[in-house]
């Protein structure tokens, strides 16, 4: 894992002191809210429906145990004993008091964490494949490059006041697990015909009110040119992006207005001016960062562990969890453990302080002190010996963290919705809870198989509803909560924006509607088909017929 150097420590410490002074001036009345608002947003502090909300950055989702324990401490001391892991691999605290936030940030800084650039029109937390370094299909650990981008983009003086927020994701594997096609810039590692590893650069993707799939602006970018090319893209966007209309300020809109060819030409022009200069990324520097992400000292496991196999045979619940939540690590004898933060009837992505402590303890004892937050609002222990899985599962189970639903119908992605968020039109969490209760039966979950259900409480799409197999969007209809359903979305290699299936459903109707869709899928799918496969084969007709009746088509 990357560890702060003296520059990082100084930057974060000075930022805490600066914000402490800004908060004091706000509380004394020396700063008005209009003056203070942009300052607090630069430090990730929002004012939501009931309270302030602090969004803490978790760079590319990776934490060490001490950091997770600090998040637990913050939940206990400054909040109400829990936190919410988000769809951008961050964590949000829903109830901090303004006067406590400087101390909270100082505590975070003591474990190399902060909330800088988790809000505002800046380059946000860089996200990456949550299986980086442990998946057997990757070309390189994407976190190396996410960290390099983090260092370049943090407090970048030219890009602190962009037309709008800017999100970058990196995937080091041919299988996209970072949704790179739905980011302002997506970087997908590729190998060229000479065997060199570099990046396919995608630009202009995003969700929100105008969902767009990113387009490839460069098929292959050498690693050495990564930062200069990103700088060129950001510079063109910063110069030409609209600042007169918040809804047209993202780079995806600029790209639509200029066209990809024209935009790419402008980027090339700028890049030719700056490439090979101060932003050149030499191999020595890549290797310096790479060393922080070196594989842990795995044990050589010669034989399959007999006790592990016996536990799977004798303990049906453990076996189910292994089948659903454990994936093979590229190191033989080790597994990737997906800890579901989606227990039946609970808020997706929420974890109590006690649960955070337990996860931290398990990471320290069984996964080389490292854990990851996923954009699917779960936690990953990347390097657990198969021989330790039963012990890990027992401890997770005792903490209510052993729900065996990874990737299944109750593993629902949901934004905070109208229960917390100032922007929301409708509640998300209670809908997720009710759906998870409807599909609580593990046998039913297994029969349905992998499926993505995403819920957003408004068109800003923090619940990524556009890319769910089943997307649910909360809308306001004459003061009442209604839910519009989209089907067929896909965040990954076959990137697709879901299609609106028909008229929306009330809060009371929506769970039955989801049940109808899933039952239809179970009825019409062919063997081995995923939901996407079935959707692409049949189109909307069978789903519309069961949802609205034959007359609707």
């Amino acid at each position, binding site marked *: 894992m990357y560890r702060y150097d003296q520059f990082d420590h100084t930057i974060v410490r000075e930022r805490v002191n600066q914000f402490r002074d800004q908060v004091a001036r706000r509380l004394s009345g020396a700063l008005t*809210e209009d003056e203070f608002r942009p300052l607090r947003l630069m430090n990730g502090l929002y004012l939501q*429906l*009931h309270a302030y909300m602090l969004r803490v950055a978790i760079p590319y989702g990776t934490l060490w145990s001490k950091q997770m324990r600090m998040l637990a401490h913050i939940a206990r001391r400054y909040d109400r004993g*829990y936190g919410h892991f988000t769809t951008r691999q961050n964590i949000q605290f829903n109830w901090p008091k*303004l006067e406590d936030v400087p101390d909270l940030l100082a505590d975070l800084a003591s474990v190399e964490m902060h909330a800088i650039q988790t809000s505002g029109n800046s380059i946000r937390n860089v996200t990456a494949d949550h299986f980086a370094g442990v998946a057997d299909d990757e070309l390189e650990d994407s976190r190396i490059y996410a960290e390099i981008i983090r260092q370049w983009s943090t407090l970048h003086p030219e890009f602190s006041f962009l037309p709008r927020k800017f999100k970058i994701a990196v995937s080091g594997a041919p299988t996209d697990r970072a949704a790179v096609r739905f980011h302002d810039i997506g970087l997908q590692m590729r190998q060229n015909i000479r065997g060199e590893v570099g990046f396919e650069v995608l630009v202009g993707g995003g969700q929100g009110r105008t969902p767009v799939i990113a387009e490839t602006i460069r098929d292959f970018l050498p690693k050495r040119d990564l930062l200069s090319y990103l700088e060129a893209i950001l510079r063109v966007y910063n110069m030409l992006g609209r600042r007169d209309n918040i809804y047209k300020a993202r780079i995806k809109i600029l790209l639509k207005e200029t066209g990809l060819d024209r935009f790419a030409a402008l980027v090339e022009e700028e890049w030719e001016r700056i490439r090979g200069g101060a932003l050149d990324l030499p191999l020595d520097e890549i290797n310096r960062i790479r060393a922080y992400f070196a594989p842990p000292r795995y044990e050589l496991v010669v034989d399959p562990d007999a006790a592990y196999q016996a536990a799977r045979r004798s303990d049906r619940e453990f076996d189910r969890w292994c089948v659903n939540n454990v994936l093979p690590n590229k190191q033989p004898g080790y597994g990737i453990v997906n800890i579901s933060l989606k227990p039946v009837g609970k808020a997706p992505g929420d974890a109590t302080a006690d649960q955070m402590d337990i996860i931290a303890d398990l990471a320290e004892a069984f996964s080389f002190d490292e854990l990851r937050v996923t954009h699917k609002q779960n936690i990953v222990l990347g390097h657990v010996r198969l021989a330790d899985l039963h012990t890990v599962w027992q401890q997770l189970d005792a903490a209510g963290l052993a729900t065996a639903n990874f990737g299944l119908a109750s593993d629902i992605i949901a934004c905070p919705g109208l229960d917390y968020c100032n922007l929301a039109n409708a509640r998300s969490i*209670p809908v997720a809870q009710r759906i998870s209760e409807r599909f609580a039966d593990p046998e039913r979950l297994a029969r349905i198989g992998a499926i993505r259900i995403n819920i957003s409480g408004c068109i800003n799409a923090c619940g990524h509803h556009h890319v769910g197999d089943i997307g649910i969007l909360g809308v306001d209809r004459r003061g009442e909560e209604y839910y519009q359903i989209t089907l067929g979305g896909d965040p990954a290699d076959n990137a697709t924006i879901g299609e609106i299936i028909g008229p929306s459903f009330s809060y009371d109707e929506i769970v039955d509607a989801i049940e109808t869709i899933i039952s239809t899928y179970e009825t019409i799918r062919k063997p081995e088909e995923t939901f996407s496969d079935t959707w692409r084969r049949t189109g909307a007709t069978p789903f519309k017929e069961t949802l609205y009746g034959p007359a609707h088509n």
Partner: protein
Amino acid sequence: MNKKSAIQFEARIITANMLVSGNVLYLDEKRCWDENIANAQIIKNDEDLARLNNMSQDAVMNSIIVGPYVMPVECHSAGLQPVSKRELIRASGPTIPTGFPEKGKPNV
């Protein structure tokens, strides 16, 4: 959410968030900022509105509250209730259990 009782009349009140905590507040009959919507002062007429707006601005200037605005309510036999779902949730807290005592809430 509980079923509403019959509406007696519609009215307006002033709400804001507390600067220090972000808590939801309502301007009450004693010219104080109260977490319980049941104690909110109803705006009776334009003069009342101007007077309460001035009081709100004083509270803003004195760093007590942030972002005051006028919101519609319904007056029921059981007390004041917000009209919109947003304000209903804002008044009563998240509709999902947080595991902690919830603040003063309207009878919804």
